[in-house]
């Protein structure tokens, strides 16, 4: 067994465990903390996929900025412990069954894919794959308009958040 497979197994197991804690934790604070650890383990998986830049973004933007926002709102609202699940209504039972069904279907399809190791890249691609320079060059040459549109989207979201959350306009 090679070290990459062991690391993948460990990160995958820890990701699923933390995701389970997010869903089943009683207090929202515990959910948020479990979500932070999920993001860290996912960043480890991204590094295994040679996506170093996205892994750094994951930790800075997700585990840093977004989760601070979540924790800030949870503490602002000062919520107590809430019951995890409501009554198991018919809609909820059907929803859970649909989720399990989706997982089974996806697993059947994905296990039919050829399970070999990922194809090897040329040495030149391998040296630059997933680095900040390559990603920046791709975004600022081929994807410049979507990039600017996303910056505009973030600005609109920021202004909209202030407008919606303000008590009196």
């Amino acid at each position, binding site marked *: 067994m090679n070290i*990459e497979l062991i690391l*993948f197994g460990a990160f*995958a197991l820890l*990701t*699923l465990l933390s*995701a*389970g804690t*997010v*869903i089943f934790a009683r207090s929202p604070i515990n*959910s948020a903390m479990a*979500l932070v650890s999920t993001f860290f383990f*996912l960043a480890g*998986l991204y590094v295994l*996929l*040679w*996506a170093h*830049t*996205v892994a750094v*973004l994951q930790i800075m*933007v*997700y585990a840093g*900025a*977004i989760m601070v*926002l*979540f924790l800030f*709102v949870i503490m602002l*609202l000062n919520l107590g412990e809430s019951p*995890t*699940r*409501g009554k198991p209504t018919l*809609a909820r039972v059907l*929803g*859970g069954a649909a*989720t*399990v069904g*989706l*997982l089974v279907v*996806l*697993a059947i399809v*994905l296990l039919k*894919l*050829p*399970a070999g190791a*990922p*194809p090897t890249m040329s040495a030149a*691609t391998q040296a630059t*794959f*997933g680095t900040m320079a*390559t*990603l920046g060059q791709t*975004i600022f040459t081929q994807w410049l308009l979507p990039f600017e549109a*996303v910056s505009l*989207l973030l600005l609109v*979201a*920021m202004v*909209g*958040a*202030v407008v*919606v*959350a303000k008590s009196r306009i």
Partner: protein
Amino acid sequence: MVPIPYYLLLAAALFCMGMFGVMVRRNALVVFMCVELMLNAANLTFLAFARMHGDVIGHVSAFFVIAVAASEAAIGLAIVIAVFRSRGSVLVEDLRTMKH
């Protein structure tokens, strides 16, 4: 080397866990967290396919997903604050004004 279908299977499991949380949890904040889980599962799929094809476009898509998730979190949490201020609750089943 880890085969790519393992990553895809993990992403599918993560997506289904997020979907389950969205349907079962009552607290709107936890529902948002489960949506973030689903977005991360999508990101993992993008990056797995990028590694498979040796193409950096998957990384660009993941970058855009992260940006959209940031704006979604900002707007969603602002709406949660506004609803909490007017109703005094963040449980999704207490919000039934538009139900009928």
